[in-house]
């Protein structure tokens, strides 16, 4: 909402010394938030005057253009009184027209200094201005591609043009919240300005407080079938309008300052009254109406071409205006083409109707129409001002457009009245914690327009008709609070009961992040969206469960219209981006939820009158997709750097496994690995990681084709695990170990096995065979080569034995070792070397 300060002052007697900055600040404190203060003339300095065109000689040029060589009367503004010679490229004017002339010495917006200059064979001493050249909206004074032509009589040649164009104005632009629709009008802004300066009621001049002629049966007939949708419909008719009459300068100026286009005098008048009163007005070409005007809901299959030329299929709860010819408008939202006011309209039916806000909202949203009228109607307009607003339109049309009031005032329906709200006298003090006594609360409620009646311990409050947003006691508390001033709310710390700290899950997640960062991984955050191409690039088979995605109805990008089922695409893209920015060695990770649909069906929409039952809450959750927390790690380049200490070490598949083991380690978990085949990993270099028999995810080297398709270096490695599963298994309380101080006995065994036998299986066999005396077992060497022969490999294990109650004898240790080897031999075909 853009409110010119001069227009605000027309409706409220503000002290003369009130600055625009202070006004804006105080209104912001009352809830009308300052967006910007505009001073359109700020960048125009020097002589800018009204000129009368004395002659305009068209001169065709070689470049195909035709310029006008003009003589313009600028009075004494040029110091000589002689006509000013000016070259002008526009053609939307003629001799005798009043135009706006900027003279040499002036500066226009963009630091454009005006000087006499030679052009097209003349000395052009100044410029005839367009609105855009003056920093005003291009279409604010007539044609957007021409110069400003002022209405006849708007001023005298030589007169300063600033005031006429509003260049001496200041405009406050407010960001109006949905609950303060009343402030989408000068009426509302002025009312709050009076409140802001604590002015007496007499200082506010309500534009809707006017004598209106009484309703009668002589006006245009109106039949409202839906009184809920349209409680009030006022119709007045004005005839004899001169469609070519110029919009008066003050009106064009104010509309321009408020950011509205000047169209024609009749349309401009309806917009002007809307800005002034907040009540949207629709004007019909009365000569194009046939029969009575009616209001009803649309019927199935009905269509309407709205005045923007769009054919709209109507829904049965759209409110429509009809006449004998059919539907002529979407009530309160947009008029129809057939009865639109045009350049030949001389007779106007003025509609000033009150519409149901919810219905307006639904229709606006359904047909994707946003308009100044719709914005006001869907937020709620004062229903009691329909007659006053219509009368104001009639007044302006007869004053400025040459119209005559036709007899007859049609008023159908009656403004609905809001029920009183009962509010505890001390509620405002209790809810705000401010020092506001019960009398003050009542006083402030009256100040914002409420009728307040005293009851026992309560106030009975009837909100004013322009405040349809006030319906609950707490709404009234806010009104009291904003008048008292939000800056007086005291600052008091509440005292919660003893808390339980972070949950175990929260603590563990921090632990995981720290462990990975400590091991040299860098955390990233990516958007959880993906598309089919992402999954194709990962090489997922057609039936891979990660292809079952939750799709967005309104994705930002057509390439990524679904919620991620894997974090790999985002993380791998990040790897590529970092490489593109010059990085060579990368270890990055992300933790985030993925979305796994589970066919839960619709989530229920419960009522809001009471809490849903636990079963109903559970039903909400059951219908949502599964959203487990995943961890993805990706590495490329060197895991350990090269340096003066020697060569570095390139990250390989085992580093991806190691990263997951790092995470498992800080959770007190030991992971088991087994060979797996799963996209996007290399089929021979992919480990499935498990806790016991529960899979937590996969790690290894990416498939060479995946690296190629994603533009990643060969042998990039990655892991993706379900962190929720890991966290769920995290060891809660570690039982303290009992340490034996008897000596350790070490035995190394080298076992020859087929190279298809997993090392983990051999280790497992050894462990089981070694029995209770085994303290630890570690694979320390893998050998392949001529000495062991093709298809074989030698695995060297270090075994440590210890007993809790004695020093082991060589015989005991040897027997345990032999038992271990025996099991490995039996289960894995191992042969001791």
């Amino acid at each position, binding site marked *: 909402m853009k409110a010119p300060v001069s227009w605000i002052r027309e409706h409220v007697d503000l002290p003369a010394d009130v600055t625009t900055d202070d006004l804006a600040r105080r209104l912001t404190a009352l*809830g009308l938030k300052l967006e910007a203060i505009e001073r359109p003339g700020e960048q125009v300095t020097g002589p800018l005057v009204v000129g009368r065109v004395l002659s305009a000689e068209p001169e065709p040029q070689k470049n195909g253009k035709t310029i006008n060589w003009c003589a313009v009367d600028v009075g004494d503004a040029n110091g000589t009184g002689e006509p000013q010679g000016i070259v002008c490229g526009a053609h939307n004017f003629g001799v005798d027209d009043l135009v706006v002339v900027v003279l040499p010495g002036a500066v226009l917006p963009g630091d454009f200094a005006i000087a006499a200059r030679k052009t097209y064979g003349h000395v052009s001493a100044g410029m005839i201005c367009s609105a855009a050249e003056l920093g005003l909206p291009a279409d604010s004074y007539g044609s957007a591609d021409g110069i400003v032509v002022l209405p006849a009589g708007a001023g005298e040649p030589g007169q300063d043009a600033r005031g006429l164009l509003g260049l001496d104005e200041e405009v406050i632009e407010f960001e109006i919240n949905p609950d303060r629709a009343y402030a989408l009008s000068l009426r509302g802004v002025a009312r709050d300005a009076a409140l802001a300066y604590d002015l007496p009621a007499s200082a506010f001049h309500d534009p809707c407080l006017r004598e209106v002629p009484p309703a009668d049966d002589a006006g245009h007939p109106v039949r409202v079938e839906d009184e809920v949708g349209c409680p009030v419909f006022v119709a007045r008719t004005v005839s004899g309008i001169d469609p070519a009459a110029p919009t008066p300068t003050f009106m064009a100026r104010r509309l321009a300052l408020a950011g509205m286009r000047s169209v024609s005098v009749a349309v401009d008048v309806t917009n002007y009254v809307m800005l002034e009163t907040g009540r949207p007005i629709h004007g019909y070409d009365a000569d194009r109406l046939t029969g009575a005007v009616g209001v009803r809901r649309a019927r199935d299959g009905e269509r309407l071409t709205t005045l923007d030329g769009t054919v709209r299929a109507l829904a049965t709860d759209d409110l429509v205006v009809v006449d004998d010819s059919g539907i002529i408008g979407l009530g309160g939202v947009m008029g129809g083409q057939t009865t639109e006011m045009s350049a030949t309209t001389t007779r106007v039916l003025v509609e000033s109707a009150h519409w149901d806000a919810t219905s307006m909202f639904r229709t606006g949203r359904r047909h994707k129409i946003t308009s100044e009228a719709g914005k006001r109607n869907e937020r709620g307009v004062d229903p009691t001002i329909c007659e006053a607003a219509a009368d104001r339109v009639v007044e302006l049309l007869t004053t400025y457009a040459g119209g005559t009031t036709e007899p007859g005032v049609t008023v159908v329906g009656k403004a609905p009245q809001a029920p009183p709200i009962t509010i505890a006298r001390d509620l405002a003090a209790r809810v705000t*914690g401010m020092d506001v006594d019960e009398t003050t609360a009542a006083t402030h409620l009256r100040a914002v327009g409420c009728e307040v009646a005293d009851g026992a311990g309560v106030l009975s409050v009837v909100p004013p008709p322009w405040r349809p947003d006030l319906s609950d006691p707490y709404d009234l508390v806010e009104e009291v609070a904003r008048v008292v001033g939000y800056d007086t709310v005291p*600052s008091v710390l509440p005292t919660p009961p003893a808390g339980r700290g972070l949950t175990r899950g929260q603590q563990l997640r921090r632990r995981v992040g720290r462990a990975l960062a400590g091991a040299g991984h860098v955390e990233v*955050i990516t958007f959880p969206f993906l598309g089919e191409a992402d999954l194709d690039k990962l090489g997922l088979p057609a039936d891979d469960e990660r292809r079952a995605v*939750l799709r967005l109805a309104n994705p930002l990008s057509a390439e990524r219209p679904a919620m991620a089922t894997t974090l790999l695409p985002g993380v791998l893209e990040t790897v590529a981006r970092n490489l593109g920015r010059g990085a060579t060695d990368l270890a990055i990770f992300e933790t985030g939820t993925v979305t796994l649909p589970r066919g839960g069906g619709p*989530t229920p*929409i419960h009522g809001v009158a009471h809490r849903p039952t636990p079963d109903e809450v559970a039903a909400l959750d059951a219908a949502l997709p599964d959203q487990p927390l995943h961890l993805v790690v990706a590495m490329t380049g060197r895991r350990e750097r090269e340096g003066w200490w020697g060569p570095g070490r390139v990250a390989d598949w085992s580093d991806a496994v190691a990263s997951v083991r790092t995470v498992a380690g800080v959770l007190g978990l030991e992971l088991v690995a087994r060979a797996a085949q799963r996209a996007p990993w290399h089929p021979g270099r992919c480990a499935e990681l498990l806790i016991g028999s529960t899979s937590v995810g996969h790690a290894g080297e990416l498939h060479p084709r995946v690296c190629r398709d994603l533009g990643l270096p060969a042998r990039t490695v990655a892991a993706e695990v379900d962190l929720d599963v890991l966290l769920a298994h995290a060891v809660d309380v570690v039982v303290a170990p009992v340490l034996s101080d008897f000596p350790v006995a070490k035995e190394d065994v080298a076992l020859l096995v087929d190279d298809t036998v997993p090392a983990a299986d051999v280790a497992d066999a050894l462990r089981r065979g070694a029995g209770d005396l085994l303290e630890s077992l570690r694979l320390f060497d893998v050998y392949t080569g001529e000495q062991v022969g093709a298809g074989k490999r030698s695995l060297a294990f270090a075994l440590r034995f210890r007993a809790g109650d004695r020093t082991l004898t060589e015989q005991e240790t040897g027997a345990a070792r032999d038992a271990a080897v025996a099991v490995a031999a039996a289960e894995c075909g191992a042969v001791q070397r």
Partner: protein
Amino acid sequence: MSGPNTDYDPVEVTPLGAEQVDEAREAALVAIAAADDLDSLKVVRTAHTGDRSPLALANREIGALPPQARKDAGRRVGQARGAVNQALAARTTELEAAHEARALVEEAVDVTLPADRVARGGRHPITLMSEHIGDLFVAMGWEVAEGPVVEAEWLNFDALNLGPDHPARTMQDTFWTEPADHHVVLRTHTSPVQARTMLTREPPIYVICPGRVFRTDEYDATHSPMFHQVEGLVVDRGISMAHLKGTLDHFATQLFGEGITTRFRPSYFPFTEPSAEVDLVCFVCRGDEPAVSSCRTCKGEGWIEWGGCGVVNPRVLTACGVDSEVFTGFAFGMGIDRSFMFRHGAEDLRDIFEGDVRYSAAFGTEL
């Protein structure tokens, strides 16, 4: 070795003679002092204390002396051997110390050589910021609540007094999922976590809800379809806007430093009534003249917008099963990304989501 004849009375020279013992002792002490490393000292030790050394020989001859002479000679030889052993020990210590000192000098390295064998890791600053904020509130006895990102429409809107026809629903540019009749959205705020908290536990409630939220904003330097929000909710007896103000003042000071307090302006949110927008004292100019008038951070206002807040609308309490006659509450919500950008002077929101490792690595593991 013989001593000089001091007179013309010839004397029989024996190893036990006083002069011989003294000479042997002196010779040993000189040799010990002359040894300049542990190896030569070892040779000296053998020569002067070994089995064939003069003092060892003398010692062996003591037994052959007549009893009255044995005592004198024993004492003389014993003292000499003691002095030599003492000198040897002392010299050994000296030479060992010198040897070690020399070795330490020789082993010195250039400690300015790089020691960055594994590149430094780092956690994402937004993760760190979320945790830091969590810690501030946990320190006050609050708890950190969480909930799903893909959320039921009822919890994201209806339960929060955003009915199907509420104009504010269009203010929130919501990502809807398919099919539309499943009523599932990407949460537009973390408020559904507040609703979930009220649905599943009884007051008093003191929680903050940090997390990812989504709006259909095109991605640029100040907008992102995904961002992070932290909301707070208190439901207890006797809670007022004053408690909200106290909490946010404390939060602001803890997060941004001493003197950074808050200001309320009337605003509108469906889930709170009264509602306020909360501004922070500009932490660049602190609102002080003359710095404020040229301050680019607050554009001369002295305040910067931080978030929204208010008293929990009783309609929300009712929908979530809290008796609004007994309990009141307050709620607030701030952007974590925005707060991070303020606190750390970050200028482009995209740096947060592009995953450039240089960004996260700069923050290490704690803020």
